[in-house]
């Protein structure tokens, strides 16, 4: 078997005495979509922050295309080809939508002129073109989520980490975003996605990792995981079980 794009190997992240993430291991293969689910506070965002370099793991390793990237800073990882979005969307509010994306484009296209053209391409792809010159602060939540994806895409990543990009969207918008994600997958980008809405995860994921209170409680194909009583109990509440 070829080396997966991303391999998370026994990662532990502790804050003080509290284990926000405890011994999590999974892989994202090339061109795969892996879903990461779990209730609030399960440690999904923490594991994202570890993978994208915001936190160094307390224990365990993270491998990207076979090389150990644990502890590398986010900007180095971005250059290597890991793009991410933030759950609490982080546009640069004082910059225009185009400029927001250009900042990311500069990573692959250091000349401003090229970066601008690249950013336009991205915005066309994600449908934000008409808003290009508006201040990012003026976007509504769906727009911001789209911008968040645009920025990550502008890095031309091989691995995309998506943190709740669908949550908060109405069904139509959600469907469009899912379409977008699938399109990206078809372009060969591997995706790790955190999502609250099970429907999304179940429909698009090749693999699902389930966390609860920092522990990895399940790993497998969506159809298998969804039947796992432990998962149902943890994620949907005891009522649904």
């Amino acid at each position, binding site marked *: 078997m070829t080396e997966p794009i991303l391999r998370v190997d026994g990662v532990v992240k502790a804050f003080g005495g509290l284990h926000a993430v405890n011994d999590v291991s999974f892989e994202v293969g090339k061109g795969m979509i892996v879903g990461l689910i779990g*209730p*609030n*506070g399960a440690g999904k965002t923490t594991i994202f922050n570890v993978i994208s370099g915001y936190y160094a793991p307390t224990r365990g390793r993270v491998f990207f295309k076979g090389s150990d990237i644990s502890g590398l800073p986010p900007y180095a990882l971005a250059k290597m080809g890991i793009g991410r979005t933030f759950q609490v969307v982080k546009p640069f509010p004082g910059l225009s939508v185009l400029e927001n994306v250009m900042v990311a484009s500069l990573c692959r296209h250091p000349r401003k002129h090229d970066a601008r053209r690249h950013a336009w391409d991205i915005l066309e792809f994600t449908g934000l073109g008409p808003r290009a010159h508006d201040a990012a*602060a*003026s*976007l*509504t*939540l769906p727009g911001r989520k789209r911008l968040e994806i645009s920025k990550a895409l502008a890095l031309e990543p091989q691995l995309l980490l998506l943190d*709740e990009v669908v*949550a*908060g*969207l*109405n*069904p139509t918008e959600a469907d469009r975003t899912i379409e977008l994600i699938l399109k990206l997958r078809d372009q060969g980008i591997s995706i790790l996605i955190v999502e*609250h*809405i*099970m*429907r*999304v995860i179940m429909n698009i994921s090749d693999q699902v990792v389930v966390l609860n*209170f920092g522990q990895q409680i399940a790993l497998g194909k969506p159809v298998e995981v969804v039947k796992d009583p432990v998962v149902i*109990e*943890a994620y*949907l*509440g*005891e*009522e*649904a079980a």
Partner: protein
Amino acid sequence: MTVLKLVSVSAGYGETQVLWNIDLEVEKGCIVALLGANGAGKTTTLKTVCGLLPATQGRLYYNGVDITGRPVHETVNLGITLVPEGRQLFGKMTVEENLIIGSFLKRAKEHRARNLAWVYELFPPLGIRRNQIAETLSGGEQQMVAIGRGLMQNPDLIMFDEPSLGLAPLLVQEMFRVIGELHRRGLTVFLVEQNVHHSLKIADYGYVIENGRIVHQGEGKQLAADPTIRQAYLGI
């Protein structure tokens, strides 16, 4: 009798409008739930009601009195209490100080001793930890402090913003037990939740909000039974 009434209320942050012409009513002694996905405008609605955010349009009535545009420290004085999302405790103060500050207003101060005793009775762990610094408590205990602090305000209308957020299932049940208990005591409850099962089970009436607009409403049980709602908003 209608305790709270929103008539075509719009609100937002800066240039971003979040709420679009919201109409809703909360009857006295009822539990009313406001449901919706992340970012749909639930928290914004609560903030607008209690005056943390100004309404850009429309009017709000509390017990028939127009409270549009009143700052938060005045609406609170009328008996509207919000238990905010994410606890929002005063992290460096003790549990008891957090509770006492709840009874800062004159209307609550006179009942301070009685309410404090009641809160400790309602949440026994708080009594044990009364001198502990709030930020060192566990999530569930922090939520208890937040609710207790709200009760110290001697409210007539108590609004909860995601009280079950981030709590283990057992604690979620405990929270809903407490909310039920408050309801029995005659308080009017306005509840914002993602945990649809629980909410609709105890709610007398429910509203579903999507992208800042009320898209469905109905009796709690009726909403709970509606499969389209479950599918579209609750993700199940």
